């Protein structure tokens, strides 16, 4: 994104003005990847990410910019340092990185937590019933003189463990699908010259991958919480 240098008014890109050497302001909505000078890829080289974070802070961290003479430059540097930190903090975590890309591409989505993904519909109801059954069996087996309930508990537990295996298998499938989507995204990045000016086809492809990534992320997060609940029920 081009910005106006506050010192010499030329329109510039990057962190420093090529005309007068002043610190350039960073727009608040500047892309996190661009701030750190990185391609918008999911499989980022995390060492390079950290190096950029260090190098930019060496220039703009308040401990360094406090020595700048011009107070306007100090302010710009401090704001920039804040955005550098936000960028690094978001991009260093893979999940947050993907969510950032999805948010950038598709806009803020309504929070979908708790909603059952379509691909899990068949399992969720059975698993919920089994959990209720197991809880009830455990409750009544605590009552004295009911040996049959002990068998009920172990039967329900066994069945639930079977479903747990199935869930773990599905999670693996989602995960591997997620990885192939991630590679598709990264390939698209490699083949796109200018991310700001995409062709209609590229844009459509890009949105499609983001949609798929978003669905997979929701599925995985749902399945993780379900697995946690099953484990809690089994081992409580």
């Amino acid at each position, binding site marked *: 994104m081009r910005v106006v240098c506050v010192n010499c008014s030329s329109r510039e890109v990057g962190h420093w003005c090529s005309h007068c050497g002043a610190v350039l302001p960073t727009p608040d909505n500047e892309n996190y990847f661009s701030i750190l000078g990185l391609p918008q890829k999911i499989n980022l080289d995390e060492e390079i990410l950290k190096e950029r974070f260090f190098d930019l802070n060496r220039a703009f961290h308040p401990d360094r910019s406090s020595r700048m003479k011009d107070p306007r430059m100090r302010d710009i540097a401090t704001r920039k340092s804040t955005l550098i930190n936000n960028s690094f903090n978001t991009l260093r975590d893979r999940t947050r990185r993907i969510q950032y890309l999805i948010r950038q591409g598709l806009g803020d989505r309504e929070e979908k937590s708790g909603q059952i993904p379509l691909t899990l519909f068949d399992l969720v109801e059975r698993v*919920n019933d089994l959990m209720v059954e197991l809880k009830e069996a455990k409750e009544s087996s605590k009552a004295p003189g009911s040996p049959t309930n002990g068998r009920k508990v172990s039967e329900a537990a066994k069945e639930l463990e079977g479903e747990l295996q199935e869930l773990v298998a599905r999670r693996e499938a989602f995960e591997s699908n997620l990885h192939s989507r991630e590679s598709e995204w990264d390939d698209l990045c490699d083949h796109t010259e200018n991310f700001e000016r995409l062709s209609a086809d590229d844009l459509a492809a890009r949105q499609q991958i983001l949609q798929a990534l978003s669905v997979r992320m929701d599925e995985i997060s749902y399945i993780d919480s379900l697995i946690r609940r099953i484990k809690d029920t089994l081992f409580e």
Partner: protein
Amino acid sequence: MAQKIIGIDLGTTNSVVAVMEGGQVTVIADDDQQRLCPSIVAVNDGAAPLVGYPARNQLVVNPRQTIYSIKRFMGRRHQEVAEEEKNISYEIVGGPEEMVKVRAGRRIFTPPEVSAIILRTLKDRAEKFLHSEIQKAIITVPAYFNDSQRQATKDAGGLAGLVVERIINEPTAAALAYGLDRKQISKVAVFDLGGGTFDVSILELSEGIFHVLATNGNTHLGGDDIDRRLVEWVYTEFEKQNAFPLNRQPQVFERVRQEAERVKCALSFEDSESFDLPILETRDGKVFNFTRRLSRADLESLVRGIIDRTINPCRRALDDAALTPEQINEVILVGGSTRMPLVRRVVQEVFRKEPNTSVNPDEVVAIGAAIQGAVLSGEISDVLLLDVNPLSLGIETYGGAMSKLIFRNSPIPATAKEVFTTAVDHQTAIDVHILQGEREMAADNRTLARFALSGISPQPAGAPRIEVTFTIDVNGILNVAARDLATGKEEHFEVKPSYGLTEEDVNRQVDESIEHAFDDMDRRMWVEHKAEAERVLAATHKALSQHSGKLDGGQLEKIDALITRTEKALAAEDWHELKSALDALNEATIPLAEVMVTEAIKKEGAPGPSGHDPGSH
């Protein structure tokens, strides 16, 4: 040459001042060659206050006018310090909601004022040593200090006539003191157990960069707790021995406390030590002493529980840094309490390596602060600290949940924006509730501030857009600014401390937050779905009472069954089941909604009482 920036460790028990000169850090001693300054202020009516050792010397004879451990009260409200209040010999005044004040003699002081007296003494000490005036300082705080505790520390500096150039975290300062001459990349854990607070920080050192990866701790855990445990032991044993309780008058209590501290310190180097408290009490003309030998093993079994409370914060910090104990190259010990052999054993168990103790644990923080002073004055140019905020920052949202805006362990300075709008027509003010903490529900976290975004022009609900920017600066202090996106009008808010919870609660909750992470999530979903279910049930009942005649028997039966199922889920407080029942109910009531829409069209121009409500979903 730029003006010197001194480094000050303003500790719970002792304070230290250091300065860098010609590439060397000097810990500055007083006229009696004492490098530590006990953080104690004695106020004698009509005379200048005594600070440090002279103040400590009058503690037993004049306990009500001698203020110690003031750091425990910095940035706190009266109702937050009940536990501390029981264990001091001077008086705390002010209502429960008010900021703590202390009474000493005829005067009343705020904690920043007392701290300022200590800071002024250290400033004088440095000026004498450097033969020049000093105006600028770096002051250290525990990494786990919250916003108001940091603000109070900064205020204390100002009152002492110092410009506080930076507030830096004690463990980070210690890492600076240890890591200056290191060139290769290494990962360091700093274990800082002081008089009143515990911090653990994990850092990565790389070519002059001190990058904090994670920090954790407890602002209510330190050597004072060990002393207190020993004091209680003395009281219990005295009563066992003499069949009556020892009195808790300040003079007696203070003698016991000082002796407990002495015995504790001695037991770091000796296998056993005697309590020697003659003439502790007289009763019916008889004199009662307390003399008892305590072994190091006895001490350790008494305080093991206290020391063990350092373990979980260490594990969490490692977890947040995504490191295993084996990946830590070095463990640094900071704070007088780390002299205890038991503490060193615990550290070794957690990090699986022998800790490094080559720099004096009482001085290492001030040395680091002096180095940071030299960095800011430009004397050192190849060192840079990249620190983090210790606790997540967020706001209260619908249903009492906390929405986190800046996560814990984010590098600072950091910022987040949130757009607020109105919920009802013509609303002119929006309440903003700022929170700090790790729990899902607002009520479980600490309130940093509540304020109203006011002066909004009356508009339909949802139309105003007020953008609020939260910034945590490089000192870890929060700033809030709001901007009306329509008019561009900007407003700044001072974040004044106002908390609803006691500090004990907050600490317990931070400790429990990891264990409760899942409960919290459940509770939040429960709150949200419960509200939704109640709304849907009410709307459905209302719609059925008016339109049930227009549905066939199968449809009605299905809706009835689902209503029962939803009500059962509500009673069982099971949000998963509730969610699924609600989804089914919403689906089943589609024909009902259709009927209502048709009716509404028929009655166009004269909408009945049921015209909007149930059909809106």
